[in-house]
């Protein structure tokens, strides 16, 4: 049970933390990758987030809130990774082509490149809201809780982020020459 593992890990039980890391690690890494859009940066962010989780676990007052708290630390690590990496240049690196995309959706995801570019134009703040809501399927109230920001701010960020993504999709129909300046 997660809470038991959290409590044990809070008191320094490395085995309990390992179980938490195994059960949550995939999801944390997936979120980091979707926010940062770069495998190496995502690995660094996930690794740092897991270490921060271990380091700060004793300060978590409510073990039942572990998951939300863990995502908060992950997003912070993504911010830090984005700031740290001078090489973090939006629009240069795409996801490997062999990564899974549901076949049934392939017809609507007609230009992943455009989506990628549109997403990379967003700030980490906006990306985090999009990923937590549209990938993790968290209600906006929980997104606000995870990010520790007002609900209105979440709504605003999501609105502007999705408007940017929609603009990116619309740009797909324009001449390629207009899409060079990344």
């Amino acid at each position, binding site marked *: 049970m997660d809470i038991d593992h959290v409590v044990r890990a809070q008191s320094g039980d490395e085995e309990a933390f390992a179980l938490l890391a195994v059960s949550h690690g995939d999801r944390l890494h997936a979120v980091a990758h979707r926010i940062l859009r770069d495998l190496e940066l*995502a690995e660094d962010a996930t690794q740092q987030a897991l270490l921060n989780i271990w380091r700060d676990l004793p300060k978590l007052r409510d073990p039942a809130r572990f998951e939300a708290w863990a995502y908060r630390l992950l997003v912070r690590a993504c911010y830090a990774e984005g700031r740290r990496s001078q090489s973090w240049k939006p629009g240069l690196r795409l996801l490997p082509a062999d990564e899974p995309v549901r076949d049934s959706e392939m017809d609507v995801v007609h230009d992943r490149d455009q989506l990628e570019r549109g997403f990379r134009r967003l700030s980490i703040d906006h990306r985090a809201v999009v990923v937590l809501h549209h990938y993790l399927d968290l209600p906006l109230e929980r997104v606000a809780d995870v990010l520790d920001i007002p609900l209105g701010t979440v709504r605003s960020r999501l609105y502007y982020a999705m408007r940017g993504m929609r603009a990116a999709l619309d740009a797909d129909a324009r001449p390629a020459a207009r899409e060079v300046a990344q």
Partner: protein
Amino acid sequence: MSGSDRSTDRIVRAWLEGGVTQLPDRLLDGVLDQLPATRQRQPFRLARRFSHMSSSLRYSLAAAAAVVVIGGGAYLFAGGNVGAPASTASPTPTEIATPTPTPDHPADLLPEADVPLEPGTYFVSQELGAGVARVIMTVPDGWTSHESWYVYREPILSAGNGVSFGPQQPIKLVHPDPCTSTSVVVGDSVDDLVTALIDTPMHDGVDPIDIGVSGYAGKEVHISSDAAIDVETCSGAHVSPWFGRWVLPGTEQTLWILDVEGNRLVIDATAEPGADATQRAELRQVLESIQIEFS
């Protein structure tokens, strides 16, 4: 929500399904391997205890701290700008003239958020061995805290003109070449780390300087990353003097590596290539203001 909005949501959701879904085993193993060396941070009991003390008790403790500093024979060296020591000659130690904090201005724990700091005396708590080291520093106007961890003037790694100051997490792996991920394991002593650092091309060639802070002995070492490094050619596109630390090409770091009750404490004063003389002078000023308490 319009049909267009719903369509965009659906497309974005489908697109987000692509991407990695598994944490690599090597990454998980790497994290778990580091747990024994990564001390958990307890809630800030020291900070609370300190803040609830009466003024008279604070005064007594501050006075006692001053006695420890002077009685312990602690000394600092007058230094030049970060990363640009003027001489390789053995410096003459000078005693600390103005121990801080003063009774009227007890140290405050650095705020957790990135917020501008009022000029004053602050501390960072760092788990160290079986105890906690409190690094107390006096910060001038214009500095900002970062997550109760370090202070900076201009964000580091953004415009390349920042300076930052704070204790480092335990350093276990030093990169002989900051542009590669190859690393050497360093032992736990001050000399182990100093030796590892001066063996790298980052070291400026100046002999490490003996220092003492609050009675704790150590070394001052200067390293810098080559300004000509093209980070795009580096492993992970990072310039990294040691595992877990990234810097820009041309960054200069003054490290105070101290033995605190048998535990190694590293204080890192970093100046990015665009930092001006005022920032560097302030950085040195913050560095030289520090005191250390261990309990």
